[in-house]
């Protein structure tokens, strides 16, 4: 009595297994392409990326792009932990400061062959050199921009001063703005709990005076005369009440975008912020040369990379080609005011209304990518290096140590640390 239903069930099971086995070859090319990024929900930038994602999926039927959003503040830690745990993305955008440690650890794949076959090979920025190690290319720029001087020309005009071209002029301008308008002359991130931004801001001054925290042969130069002079300049703004204390980078940008700061050293993304949060101010803002003796600008951004353990490198290569297409790169620049990772010739109309882009391109062409983000000779151990420098800057900025004594301590601490590396 019961034998018949059992046989029927067994037959059904057999058919199901056979169908499943037959289906495997059909779906072998279908898979999920893992692409984590901090940009998926970044307003218009997120929309731009989602459009590219849709184009990629349309061109590659069967591939589903998994767009995982990881906040920029925790992106590095999250990605490093994921890679260490074996959960490897197929396409990985990285910040400039992430590049050297990932390359050093062998976590990224070189993709020179991919670049050679792609349409972007003739439009590469020179900043690609930062992603080259031993002749192999581990990343192509996603966005690359110098951090130079942004000025609120209306505030300067109210104070009766011009855009400063030297450090003395800048100090005089900041003082005049504070005294005549009550707004801040110069603002910079000095919430020392935020290590990266405090360090980068110090670099604007240190490289601006022709120094650095170390030399490429790993000699520490924290107490070099030019470094001391640079930090003395920064401290002067705090001591004289010309710069607000305790602000992080976001707070400083918000202050600038609301028209309460005359001078800021930062990247062109501040222009985007002004355009979206206070568009009437945009006409008064300019992006111009650093007033420091060398005019050197900290230069950084982000790169597209392909993890070494990704099983879908060819598709990652196709995706990189897609996002670097000439048309979409122009949209990236002219529509979103984002600095492209490839050479893009802006249209005359765009340049007429956004002259600062031309200035920025000129500045960007002069300085190598990654300048200022990582100390020469210590790119892989940069997080610890930056932490030590920032710990001592905290003592100096708060007045617990003089500039000379504080940097003397920095020198000793860095030398002690470097000897253990």
């Amino acid at each position: 009595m019961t034998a018949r239903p059992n046989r029927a069930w067994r037959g059904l099971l057999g058919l199901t297994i056979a169908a499943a086995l037959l289906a495997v070859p059909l779906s072998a090319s279908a898979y999920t392409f893992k692409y984590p990024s901090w940009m998926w929900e970044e307003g218009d930038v997120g929309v731009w990326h989602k459009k590219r994602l849709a184009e990629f999926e349309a061109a590659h039927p069967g591939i589903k792009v998994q767009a995982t959003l990881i906040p920029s503040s925790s992106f590095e830690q999250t990605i490093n932990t994921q890679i260490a745990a074996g959960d490897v993305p197929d396409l990985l955008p990285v910040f400039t400061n992430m590049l050297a440690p990932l390359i050093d650890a062998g976590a990224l794949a070189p993709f020179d062959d991919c670049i050679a076959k792609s349409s972007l090979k003739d439009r590469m920025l020179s900043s690609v050199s930062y992603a080259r190690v031993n002749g192999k290319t581990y990343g192509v720029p996603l966005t690359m921009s110098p951090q130079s001087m942004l000025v609120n020309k209306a505030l300067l005009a109210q104070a009766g001063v011009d855009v400063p071209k030297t450090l003395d002029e800048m100090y005089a301008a900041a003082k005049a703005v504070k005294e005549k308008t009550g707004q801040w002359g110069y603002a910079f991130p000095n919430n020392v709990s935020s290590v990266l931004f405090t360090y980068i801001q110090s670099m604007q001054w240190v490289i601006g005076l022709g120094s650095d925290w170390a030399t490429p042969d790993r000699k520490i130069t924290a107490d070099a005369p030019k470094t001391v002079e640079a930090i003395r300049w920064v401290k002067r703004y705090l001591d004289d009440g010309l710069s607000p204390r305790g602000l992080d980078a976001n707070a400083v940008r918000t202050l600038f975008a609301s028209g309460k700061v005359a001078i800021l050293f930062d990247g062109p993304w501040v222009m985007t912020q002004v355009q979206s949060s206070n568009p009437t101010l945009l006409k008064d803002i300019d992006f111009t040369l650093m007033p420091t003796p060398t005019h050197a600008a900290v230069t950084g951004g982000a790169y597209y990379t392909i993890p070494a353990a990704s099983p879908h490198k060819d598709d990652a290569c196709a995706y990189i080609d897609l996002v670097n297409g000439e048309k979409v790169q122009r949209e990236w620049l002219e529509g979103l005011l984002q600095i492209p990772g490839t050479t893009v010739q802006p249209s005359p109309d765009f340049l007429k209304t956004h002259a600062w882009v031309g200035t920025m391109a000129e500045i960007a062409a002069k300085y190598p990518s990654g300048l200022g983000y990582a100390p020469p000779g210590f790119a892989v151990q940069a997080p610890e290096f930056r932490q030590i420098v920032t710990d001592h800057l905290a003592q100096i900025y708060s007045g617990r140590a003089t500039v000379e004594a504080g940097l003397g301590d920095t020198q000793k601490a860095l030398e002690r640390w470097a000897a253990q590396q």
Partner: protein
Amino acid sequence: MGRAAITARSRPQRATDWLPPALIAPAGVILSVLLAYPILRGIALSFFNTRLLRFDQGRYIGLANYNALIADPNFWNSVTVTIVYGAAVTICTYAVGLALALLLNRRMPARGLLRTIIIMPWAIPDVVAVLIFVWMLDAQYGVINYGLVEAGVLRAPVAWLSDADLAMLALVMVTCWQQFPLAMLILLAGLQTIPRELYEAAMSDGAGHWALFRHVTWPGLRAVNAVLVLMLVLNSFRRVTTIYAMTAGGPARATETLSILTYNTAFQYQQLGYAAAIGTALLLILLAFSLVYMRIVRPGAEA
């Protein structure tokens, strides 16, 4: 007859012998996987020079991480910061919790509503509370600076979270605010277990408020205090979210507790083996504290 009686008595006992372990087993297995394994794995990792991005290339280095730890000024700074933070948070939380528990233990109008309102800080998720406080403590726009300047307490706004002297104070205040409802609830429960007759007898002997507190309330809270203080200390030693979201251990390592140092070493500097050694040291410190503390406060310890 005798053997039969013994068998009859022992049969149900054998059945109940297996029941408790069987019931505990699933939880035991889950705990072993979720707690014991990571702890043991962490201790094992502390004997290797493993780096985060080179996880498979870690080499056994014996006690080298521990030797480095002993010579590391950042480790000793974190030990000090942890003790200061733990002590300050425990004292503040306990004091506020006790004061409110004593207040709400009295008969008063709207007592239930007051209890509910006072519990609110505990119900707010850590991250939300921290984000609110970071705004309130903001050097430029913060309402706390505004209030203090307007009231004439401060001449100018201060940078609460980026001044090494003030950051710890701000952190203790916020943690105390988050935790005092828990202390209050536990102490209130403890107060309600003290028999009324003891107070009545003491009052009939002429005891005043202080004498009542000292000779009736305080001894009556002894058992509750023992557990509560241990909980508060352990909570503050292992607290990460509040500290990381407010100061990330800065400025200049002024709020870098051992938990934060462990996190920074593992995920910022990528020295997983060394971070595991710091974590193991923290575990040993907490174990030693708990053992000594429980020995001191166990019933009859003063005898």
